[in-house]
Structures are given as structure tokens and as C-alpha cells.
């Protein structure tokens, strides 16, 4: 970005903000119609900031919490067919999960803006920055703008909105910026004091294009189109993409007049007479500029090229820029495995190949993957590689990884704990017998004291917050499980804090998969186990127990595969720890968040009062799949939970799939006291918000009835223990509280009816 005239800043405020804050600010000022979203680090904050601003009444964008990124992309495509302004933000695997939908949107030619806060794609799971997600976006048919710092995020979002809607383009646009480095770093910024300036610049949504809401002109959006028509649709799309370049230049020029900030298609730093250059995307290019200044002082003619737009790829400008450069090193924060260089290397080479006079030596280095920091001295080393190539006249190693190290053999992994033997896992303390008359199970478990003899499934040393309820919940459950297990954890707090590389707190075998797909994955594990057993290829006991552990977030995005696994009735357990929100990404609402509860995407303030709709009843949804056993439990009723675990194991070994939900406290995000976790989940049970019961072969039994025990308390008692719900006890939230109480009572009475009638 180059600043042209200082006096333009009279309409602008100077501030100190992050890329995510600037993204939210631009979006709020434009006041998009709809944002369908699903949280994923590091883009999540954009939705959080927008929620905060909405709570204060600073915009009125309709924000729809989707069931996953695929769902969010569907919401946004649908909204875009209505002819309104649509925005979304995502990162990494979220982007890949919605990938299928993105060519649908570009191929159907409905504009919107997507902020891609770039992050490494899994696996192994990595939440930090690189460009591996971005590279998957190169072929989706969306123009892609790159924002190198928080200022550019704001400016390019405004430009992108206008670009997408332009009559010669009519394509959705990606604005990509570096995760954490740009998204979470506060920098000096300017923005318009008055959102009207922004809205006037962007203009009204242009009319005369297809919309789903014009009864006088009904349309068929998305026909079935084979050859020979399809290639013509794609040709139109290709033309629109190339047209985006000229349209961008025109809008960027208009924006320069308004803002004083210039975003040329290719940002060139001291390239006029450069003999060696680095070609870098986004924030790394800024670091390299400092190295250029240093090298220039030493008399080395160095420069940096970094595009502000990579779709369409600015081949002409790059050709021009590299005309007299003797060697360029393309640094890439993602690989195109096996292609002898990342995607951008190939495109830079292709661009200069068309210049018959060009003799630039091209080197390619993969660097700074997965958030590895990039330092000025490393940029200097890149320049040195280019200088060496100039001196030799060729690149000795054209392609390589930079910044890897072999590791010291002394530090190679060594066993730390002796594995727990099968006999030790089989304590003999838990007894399950089938009553042949009723067909139901009878379970005997000893006092907790005796059960301390059983080894725990986890080793200490995990990094959960103080007072976290996940492990007390899981370990109490595991006390009822005998013998060997294979555990699969879906992405979530429980997974992240127990497997931070190179450490693992899981004593037995553990598998992770992304949280939309754990149930499917574990069903594959289970079936391979039985298939290998059937073929006589493994000699292990057949009483392995397969347990999938998920948060309530995983049961939102992973609901489909969980139901699929349940309908197929694999011999496995799905165990959900419910902390009423997406805590791993910073406490966004989940469908299990109760009404009125405050989260980072359901703020409490002038314009909204916490979550708008009631909590999901996952146990009843799973019971409706007619699996053999469904239960709920908490650490506050340990004997009850242990008995249910024993039954769960019996059914998972003998009949099929089991689903269980345990309520656990999250002191950090429930804004509750660390030490009160047990009492909090106990009170949730006594208030009938979280009844503990089981559905065994279709028969519902309430295993602890607070009314019969004389222990029932009003739900306000539970809400009063949590900071996130204190507001619900104030008079102005009376209606929400009443609605919550009625919903609890309705669900409780229905459960009581089921408990008394085996046919319900």
C-alpha cells in the first residue's frame, strides 16, 4: 500500500486494530444483509466482533450460526440468490469443508465476499498460519485479493464488495490474509469515521440481475447441464475472471481518490533496478522489505514482489517486473507436493516463459509452514540463495524446503511409560449381567474408593484450564469400562490439550479426526477390526471397546456422520462431553447452548439478550435412531455414570452403537468458579435442565429423579451459579427465563411420561 495524499485523512480515524477487527469493521460499515458462518480459528473473531457490534446496534447484518462450514456456504449461496449482500469468514479446514460449494457459487455467478484467514490445513492438526488453505482456492473460480496487513484487510474488503457485484464480473471474491500475523496483530490503521462514506463508495447493490424473489420473472437457478453447453458456461466464467483485473484497477483507483491508499495489482518494492528479488505473498513480503533496505545499504540491488491479487494471476505485471531480474526466489507457505515447486512458483515460471527475452533464474523454497515465524535474517538468506544463483549462472538447488532440521538422534522418542497390560485394565470390579426375563442389564459397581485401583486412561500432564470438567467426566465414565479400548477424539478442547506434540496424555491407542467425521472414522476402525479378526489376521482379544469422544460442537458439525454410524449400528460408543459451546475456538454458541446464555457469538446487551433459540436435545435425537442404548450423566452422580458406562460397554460389545452425553463445566467460558464444577453440573441435574436417564432398548428410565428425592430446585438457582447467565435473573430478561423454564418443564414432563410408559 502506498499513501498518496495526507489531507485525505480528514474523514478518517487513526486507531490501533487487528486484521480481524478491521475485517469486522469494514463488514459492519458496508452492512451486508446476511452472514452464514461457522467458527474456526483464526477467523472466528470476525463473527465475534460482528456479534459484539450487533449487540451494540452498530449494524444489522443477519448472522446465522450454521451447522458447519459446508452449511454456512449453503446458507450464503442461498442468500446470494436472493440478490442481497452476503459475507462469510473462514480458515483452513473450514475452507476445505465448504470447498464443494464454492464453485457452485462462482459457476452460478452470485457475488459475495469471503474472508479467508489463512491457516495450515490438517493433518496433523495445526491452527497456525500458512497458505495451504489458500492454494486449494486457486481453482474455485473466485477472484482472490491478498491483504498484507490490517489496513489492507479493511480496504480490500470494501474494494472486493464492489468488484464482486460489477456487471463485468458477477463473481464471489475471496480476501485472504495471514492467520495470527495479520488477523491477531494490532497495527496502526485508518478507517472512515462515517460508514456512509463506505456505503456511498460501494453503492446500492446493482439491480437487473437474477434474483430468486421476482415472481414476475421466475427463473431456474442451477439447471442440469451436460455437454455441449457446460464448456460455454465455463468460458463465460473464465472471461469474467479475466475481466476482474481491469475492473479491480478501476475500483482501486476510485478508492485511492477516496482514501489516499493505493493497492496496485502487484506491489513492487525497490524493483526498478533490482537484480535479485523475492516473490512472496502477504505478510512475509513485508518482513523481506526490511531485508531489502539492509542489502541496498550494502550495495546489493534487491527487491520484493508481492501481488495484491492472485486470481486472476497478474502474469503481465509479473513478467514486466522480472524483466531485468537475474534471479528470483519464490517463497511459498504451502507445497504442491511432487510438483517441484508450489503453485505460485509454477505460475511465475509460466508467466516469464512467455517472454522470449527473459533469462531470470527461478528458485523455489517452501518455508514457514504451520505458523513457523519468518525473520528478517531468513529473508536475507533467501536473497543470498538468489545471489549465489546469479554468480553461478544457474540454481544449484532449484526447489527445496527451508527451515527444516533433522533433529538430534539423542532426542528421538523413547518410551516413557510401560504400557498398561490388558489384565490391569480388567479390574474385575465391574459386573454386568443380562436379565434373561426382561432382556435388560443388571450392573454392580463397587464404591469409588475401590475403583481408584483401576488405572486411569489418561496420564497426567494435559494442558486443560484449571477446573476443566472434561477429564473428570471422561475418567468417571472410563471407570466403568473394562479391558482395552481404542479411543477416537474429534477435534475439540479434549483433543487439543491432551495431544500437544510431542506429548500425548493418552495411555492407550488414540486416533484423532476432524470433528465433522469422527463417527464415520471410528466406524471404519471398528469394521476393520472385525474384518481382520474374521480373516484371522490379528490375534487380539475380541473384547476391545471402541469409544469416540466429542464435544457438543462435534455433535453439531458431525451430526450427519453420527446419525449415519448410529443407523448402521456399529459396535461402538459415542460419548459427548457437553459444555454448551465451541469452547476450543473461544466460546461461540453451539446448538446445545441454552436460550439466553451469553457466548462470544450470542452477546448480551442493548440489541440482543444471549442465544436466540433453545438448546438441542441430542440424546433424544440419537434415541430416535433406535440404537440399543442412550444415556446421560455427570461427574456429580459418579455411581450412576459408572453404571451407565458398564452398560454402554456391554451393548457396544454385544449389540451395537451407544450414545451418551455428559454435562461438564467450563469455568472459563461459563464464567464460573473453577472449584464449583461438580456442584454446578449437579445443580443442572436437580433443576431438571439436564435430567440423567437412559434409553435401553427403547425403554426410558430416569435414573435419578430430583422430584422424587425432594431435591428439585428452580433453574434460576443453576443460572445464578454461572456468570454467563446472571443477566437472566434480572427483570428485563423475565420473558427469556420463562421461555427457558417452560421448555425445561415440557421436556422433563415428556421424559417422565416416557419413564412411566415403556411404549413411549
Amino acid at each position, binding site marked *: 500500500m502506498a499513501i498518496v495524499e495526507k489531507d485525505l485523512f480528514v474523514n478518517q480515524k*487513526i486507531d*490501533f486494530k487487528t486484521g480481524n477487527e478491521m475485517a469486522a469493521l469494514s463488514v459492519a460499515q458496508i452492512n451486508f444483509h446476511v452472514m452464514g458462518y461457522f467458527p474456526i480459528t*483464526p477467523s472466528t473473531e470476525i463473527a465475534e466482533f460482528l456479534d459484539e457490534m450487533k449487540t451494540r446496534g452498530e449494524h444489522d447484518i443477519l448472522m446465522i450460526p450454521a451447522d458447519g462450514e459446508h452449511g454456512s456456504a449453503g446458507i450464503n449461496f442461498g442468500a446470494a440468490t436472493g440478490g442481497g449482500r452476503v459475507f462469510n469468514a473462514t480458515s483452513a479446514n473450514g475452507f476445505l469443508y465448504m470447498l464443494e460449494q464454492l464453485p457452485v457459487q462462482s459457476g452460478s455467478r452470485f457475488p459475495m465476499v469471503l474472508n479467508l484467514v489463512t491457516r495450515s490445513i490438517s493433518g*496433523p492438526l495445526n*491452527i497456525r498460519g500458512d497458505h495451504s488453505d489458500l492454494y486449494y482456492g486457486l481453482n474455485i473460480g473466485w477472484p482472490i485479493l491478498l491483504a498484507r496487513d490490517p489496513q489492507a484487510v479493511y480496504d480490500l474488503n470494501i474494494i472486493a464488495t464492489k468488484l464482486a457485484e460489477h456487471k463485468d464480473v458477477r463473481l464471489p471474491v475471496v480476501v485472504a490474509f495471514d492467520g*495470527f*500475523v495479520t488477523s491477531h*496483530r*494490532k*497495527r496502526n490503521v485508518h478507517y472512515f469515521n462515517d460508514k456512509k462514506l463506505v456505503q456511498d463508495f460501494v453503492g446500492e447493490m446493482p439491480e437487473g440481475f437474477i434474483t430468486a424473489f421476482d415472481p414476475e420473472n421466475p427463473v431456474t437457478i442451477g439447471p442440469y447441464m451436460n455437454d455441449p453447453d457446460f464448456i460455454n458456461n465455463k468460458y463465460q466464467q473464465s472471461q469474467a475472471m479475466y475481466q476482474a483485473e481491469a475492473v479491480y484497477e478501476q475500483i482501486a483507483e476510485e478508492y485511492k481518490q477516496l482514501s489516499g491508499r493505493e493497492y496496485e495489482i502487484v506491489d513492487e518494492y525497490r524493483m526498478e533496478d533490482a537484480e535479485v528479488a523475492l516473490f512472496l505473498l502477504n505478510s512475509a513480503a*513485508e*518482513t523481506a522489505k*526490511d531485508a531489502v533496505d539492509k542489502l541496498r545499504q550494502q550495495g546489493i540491488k534487491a527487491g520484493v514482489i508481492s501481488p495484491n491479487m492472485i486470481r486472476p494471476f497478474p502474469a503481465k505485471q509479473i513478467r514486466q517486473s522480472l524483466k531485468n531480474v537475474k534471479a528470483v526466489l519464490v517463497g511459498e507457505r504451502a507445497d504442491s507436493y511432487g510438483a517441484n515447486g508450489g503453485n505460485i512458483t509454477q505460475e511465475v515460471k509460466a508467466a516469464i516463459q512467455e517472454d522470449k527475452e527473459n533469462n531470470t533464474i527461478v528458485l523455489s523454497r517452501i518455508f514457514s509452514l504451520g505458523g513457523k*515465524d*519468518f*525473520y528478517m535474517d531468513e529473508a536475507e538468506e533467501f536473497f543470498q540463495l538468489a545471489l549465489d544463483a546469479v554468480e553461478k549462472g544457474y540454481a544449484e538447488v532449484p526447489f527445496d524446503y527451508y527451515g*527444516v532440521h*533433522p*533433529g*538430534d*538422534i539423542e*532426542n*528421538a*522418542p*523413547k*518410551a*516413557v*511409560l*510401560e504400557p498398561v497390560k490388558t489384565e490391569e485394565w480388567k479390574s474385575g470390579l465391574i459386573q454386568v449381567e443380562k436379565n434373561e426375563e426382561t432382556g435388560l442389564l443388571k450392573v454392580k459397581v463397587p*464404591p*469409588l*474408593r475401590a*475403583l*481408584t*485401583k483401576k488405572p*486411569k486412561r489418561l*496420564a*497426567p*500432564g*494435559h*494442558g*486443560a*484450564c*484449571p*477446573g476443566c*470438567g472434561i*477429564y*473428570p467426566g471422561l475418567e*468417571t465414565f472410563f471407570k466403568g469400562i473394562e479391558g482395552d479400548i481404542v479411543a477416537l477424539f474429534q477435534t475439540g*478442547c479434549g483433543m*487439543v490439550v491432551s495431544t500437544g*506434540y*510431542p*506429548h*500425548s*496424555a*493418552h495411555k492407550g491407542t488414540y486416533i484423532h479426526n476432524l470433528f465433522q467425521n469422527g463417527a464415520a472414522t471410528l466406524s471404519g476402525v471398528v469394521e476393520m477390526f472385525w474384518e481382520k479378526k474374521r480373516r484371522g489376521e490379528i490375534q487380539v482379544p475380541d473384547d476391545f471397546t471402541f469409544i469416540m469422544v466429542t464435544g457438543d460442537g462435534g455433535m453439531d458439525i458431525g451430526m450427519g456422520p453420527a446419525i449415519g454410524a448410529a443407523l448402521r449400528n456399529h459396535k461402538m460408543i459415542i460419548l459427548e462431553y457437553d459444555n454448551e459451546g465451541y469452547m*476450543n475456538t473461544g466460546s461461540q454458541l453451539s446448538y446445545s447452548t441454552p436460550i439466553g446464555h451469553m457466548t462470544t457469538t450470542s452477546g448480551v446487551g442493548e440489541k440482543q439478550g444471549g442465544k436466540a433459540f433453545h438448546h438441542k436435545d441430542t440424546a433424544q435425537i440419537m434415541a430416535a435412531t433406535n440404537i440399543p442404548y442412550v444415556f446421560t450423566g455427570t*461427574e456429580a452422580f459418579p455411581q450412576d455414570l459408572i453404571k451407565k458406562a458398564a452398560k454402554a460397554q456391554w451393548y457396544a460389545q454385544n449389540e451395537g452403537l451407544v450414545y451418551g452425553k455428559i454435562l461438564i463445566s467450563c469455568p472459563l467460558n461459563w464464567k464460573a468458579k473453577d472449584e464449583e464444577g*461438580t456442584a454446578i453440573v449437579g445443580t443442572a441435574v436437580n433443576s431438571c435442565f439436564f435430567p440423567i436417564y437412559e434409553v435401553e432398548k427403547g425403554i426410558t428410565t430416569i435414573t435419578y429423579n430430583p422430584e422424587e428425592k425432594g431435591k428439585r430446585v428452580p433453574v434460576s438457582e443453576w443460572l445464578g451459579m454461572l456468570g454467563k447467565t446472571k443477566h437472566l435473573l434480572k427483570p428485563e430478561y423475565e420473558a427469556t427465563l420463562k421461555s427457558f423454564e417452560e421448555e425445561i418443564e415440557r421436556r422433563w414432563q415428556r421424559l417422565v411420561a416416557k419413564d412411566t410408559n415403556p411404549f413411549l
Partner: protein
Amino acid sequence: MSKLPIKNELGFFEIRLESIGGLGAHLAGKMLAEAGVLGLGLNGAHFSSYGSEKKGSPVKSFIRLGEREIRASNPVERPHVVGVFHEALFKTIDVANGLYPDSVMLVNTTKSPEEIKEKLNIQSGTIAVIDALNISVEERTRVNTAMLGALYRIAEFLDPEARKNVIRATFEEKYPHLVEANIRTFDRGYNEVVFKTFEAEDGMVTDFVRAKSSLGYETQPIGGVITNPGNSILKDLSASRQGFLPSYDKDKCINCAACDTACPDLCFVWKEEIDKKGRPQMVLQGIDYQYCKGCMKCVVVCPTDALSKTRETDGYADENRVPHNFVLASN
């Protein structure tokens, strides 16, 4: 004339804060940088180390201020000032890494500058100490406000009056009763910080280490698989505690195991013993403080007075720790 007293080769004044999640170092860092940017018209950058680390895990916050455009995005490796919010980090983090011979090291501690110098093996520079925990306990405020006061004293180019106005504005509307306590906390941090400068010998240089991962491409098992699970026992989580731990009185214990059920961190150590009637019984031996984060759930669920919340004094955890008797692998 420069507004900044000292600058590195790129022209920046750099601060690094060392803390654990939950103590407010990120917020303090933001406030320092904002004061430079919005108060003095400097260019600034502020960011913290991010990961999936949770409350209680080590965190760093970085501030970079300068008169020229900031382009670098890397963490602060050579700080002019380090602020340590939590002394227990000394055990696991090299908080002094990268200090210049004349940098300032501020520590939230009850120790003297000489003791800190000794403990961190710092050769020269200024050591500043402040008992921010005590101030925050007395004023019923947060540690970060007291630390911020001390940091303002160190970064003399920032205007403490402007900060106090911000504190006032922050609390005035919603929490007017907190204004005075927070201003007092800031002032006490500013006034009670104690300095001692240890002169560097001429020409002295200090070094810094850019950390490398312990495993590399020749030693990582392929696929990112961890082949020695359970190795989390090697970690030391004691720095997650914020001044308190549960103490255990075996005489009052009825071995009900309520604590064991409630403990998120698997800290309770049991052993089978023979009771008076000759029967084998599990008996609680004590707490493995290496993993205790001080949440106090166990204290709340204990039906007797066997567990109680105790202010952690130096050495208490080491003396009273009952280590788990893990069956270690023989390599």
C-alpha cells in the same frame, strides 16, 4: 528528537511480557502499545503467542514501537524490557532469553533484585521488582494493573496520567466502585517498583537462542504419530497455579475418593494397604503437585477437612509432593 529512549537496528523499542493465560498480560501489552500509538503518535504492533494453550498455560505478549513503519511480524527476540507476570515461570521458561546487557527485567515477586539476578543468572542490566500479587490482593484488583503501573515507570516516555484517564473511562460507567481501587493499584505499581542497576562490563554482549523443536525430520515418526504416549507425565504444570494449592491432611481423610473423581488433572495418588481387619483397601497417599493447577475442586467436594486451600509458599509443593508411582519403561 526521538520519543523513544533506545532502539534496535530497525529503529524499534521492544517489550516482551511473560505470563500465563488468565493474568491479563495480553491486555496489559495492548494497553502499553496503545499508549505509544494513540498517545504519542508512534507506529506500533502488539500481538501475543497464540495456540490452543488454555488458561494457566505460558503465554508471551509482544510490543514493538517505533517512529518508522513497522513491517516485521516476528516475535520479540531482543527485548529492551521484559515483564514477568508470574514468577513460577522461571522453572519452565527462559524468561531472560535475548536481554541486552542494559535491558530492564521486571518481575512480579517478593524477592529482591539481587535474588532475581542470582536466580536468573543475569549478568547486567536493571532488575525491577514489584509485589503485584500482594497489591492486587490488598486492592481486590488484578495483577496486570499493578504490573502496568510498574511498566509505565520503566517506559518513561509513556504518560501515566493518560493511562489513569483510560482506567477511569473504562470502569466509570459500569463499575464506578472499581475506579479508585484500580487507579490505586496502578499508582502503587508505579511507585512501589524497586530498581537496581548492575553495570555491564565494557563491550559485553549477550546472546539469545531461537528455539528449535526437539524432534526433526529424521527423528519424528512419520505421520505425526506419537509413539510414546503417556509422555505428558514429563510436563510440569505447577506454573499454572496462581498462588494457592490444596493441602492434604491424611489424618482427617476418610478415603471416599470424591477428590479423585473431581480432580481434572489426575493428581491424587493411591496405594493399596491392609486395614485393621486385614482386608486390602485403597488409601489416599497425597497429591502429585507437579500436575496440580490449583483449581480447588477437590477442596470443595471433600466431605471432611482433609483438603484445604492453602497459600503456596516457596518450596511447599516440592516438600509435600507425593509423586505418582508410574511404571516407567526401560529403554
